[in-house]
């Protein structure tokens, strides 16, 4: 089939120019053509021998090259060549413009109109394969891991070594960082512990300094002074006695009694830290009730002294005394901590 097709489609295109050199009239026109043709293999010598095997015109290439040598001397060939254009050349382009049927025209003719011939289908199939392979290769090359794909063995070994080195270095770094993290965690644990203790201490000190409210067992003492005979030194004695008995937090009529508390006499009452309070004086004391109450009631003690002054004193034990009067924390102006 292809053998028959070949003369139909290709021969008319080639043969006319070849027949042209035979006729003396167009000999000058053919000469450059032949020259052009020979020029190609000369231009690229290595391609020349393969040309015959590869160029699809391989079957005809020898004929073509031998044509000027072999055909021209033989007169018997001359009638043969014109014969062919008559057979098949007429349907394609059997006009006088036939010799001008250039490669460009052939390309256009081949492209348009599309012809569904077996040759076209086979070539299309092969080109499909080519395009497919091309696209697949391009796609796989543009993949991310493609760098390794085309790499040679020694390159791969080198890359592997580098990766091993890198892994080792990173492993070392990781160990160092883990150690560091451990230390930091330990130290942060310690810091947490220290902070906890500091908070605890702050609470304890806050109770003493009167900056936080306190509650616990204790006593409540009320001094009724109807005659106005109770003075600040008596209350101070009472406070001292309570402190000596282990009182931890004291407030008098809503005023917290702390280390720096001072008492002074005022009109019709007593001034505690500048706050004037009047009878009845209510002491709320947190401490051990069993110690506090006897300390007040001892003979010649606070209660007896006050009763001698016509004041009424009542002491009650309680399991829950709330000392909620607060003092603002005051930063000392002159005293500085000598620790650290």
């Amino acid at each position, binding site marked *: 089939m*292809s*053998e028959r*097709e*070949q003369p139909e*489609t*290709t021969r008319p295109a*080639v043969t006319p120019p070849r027949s042209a050199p035979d006729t003396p009239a167009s000999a000058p026109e053919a000469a450059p053509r032949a020259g*052009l043709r020979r020029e*190609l293999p000369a*231009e*690229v010598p*290595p*391609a020349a021998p393969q040309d015959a*095997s*590869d*160029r*699809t*015109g*391989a*079957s*005809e290439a020898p004929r*073509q090259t031998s044509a000027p040598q072999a055909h021209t001397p033989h007169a018997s060939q001359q009638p043969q060549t014109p014969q062919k254009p008559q057979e098949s050349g007429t349907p394609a382009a059997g006009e006088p413009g036939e010799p001008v*049927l*250039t*490669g*460009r025209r*052939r*390309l256009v003719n*081949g*492209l*348009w*109109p*599309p012809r*569904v011939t*077996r*040759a*076209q*289908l*086979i*070539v*299309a*199939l*092969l*080109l*499909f*394969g*080519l*395009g*497919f*392979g*091309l*696209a*697949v*290769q391009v*796609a*796989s*090359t543009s993949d991310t891991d493609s760098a390794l*794909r*085309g790499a*040679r063995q020694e390159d791969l070994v080198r890359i592997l070594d580098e990766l091993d080195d890198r892994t080792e270095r990173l492993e070392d770094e990781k160990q160092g960082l883990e150690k560091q993290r451990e230390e930091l965690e330990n130290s942060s644990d310690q810091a947490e512990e220290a902070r906890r203790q500091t908070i605890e201490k702050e609470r304890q000190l806050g109770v003493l300094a009167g900056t936080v409210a306190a509650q616990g067992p204790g006593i409540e003492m009320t001094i009724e002074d109807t005659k106005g005979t109770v003075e600040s030194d008596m209350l101070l004695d009472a406070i001292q006695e309570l402190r000596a008995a282990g009182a931890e937090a004291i407030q008098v009529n809503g005023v917290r009694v702390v280390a720096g508390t001072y008492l002074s006499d005022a009109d019709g009452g007593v001034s505690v830290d500048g706050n004037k309070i009047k009878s009845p004086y209510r002491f709320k004391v947190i401490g051990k009730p069993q110690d506090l109450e006897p300390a007040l009631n001892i003979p010649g003690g606070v209660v007896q002294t006050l009763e001698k002054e016509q004041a009424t004193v009542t002491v009650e034990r309680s399991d829950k005394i709330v000392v909620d009067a607060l003092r603002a924390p005051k930063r000392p102006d002159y005293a500085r901590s000598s620790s650290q």
Partner: protein
Amino acid sequence: MIAVLGLIVGVVAGLLVRPEVPAVVEPYLPIAVVAALDAVFGGLRAMLDGIFDDKVFVVSFLSNVVVAALIVFLGDKLGVGAQLSTGVVVVLGIRIFSNAAAIRRHVFRA
């Protein structure tokens, strides 16, 4: 025309399907593609010369691919696969250029 369509359809199909290249074929595919390209350029040149023959084209296409793959295979077995495939690519590249030059003369007459 149908041949050109076949090429386009092939490229599109390859891009859309994106099949995983089997490991066995992997080293030969690029060389095979270059060899096939060489055959296609040769065929195009032959068509412009007016001496195109589909049978010759098919045979040259397939043999090009097979021989190229064979050379690479042999080179791999001999331990000179990289160099040999470079050589094949160089040779095929030269041929493609010479064919392209011929095609250019035909199409642009220059």
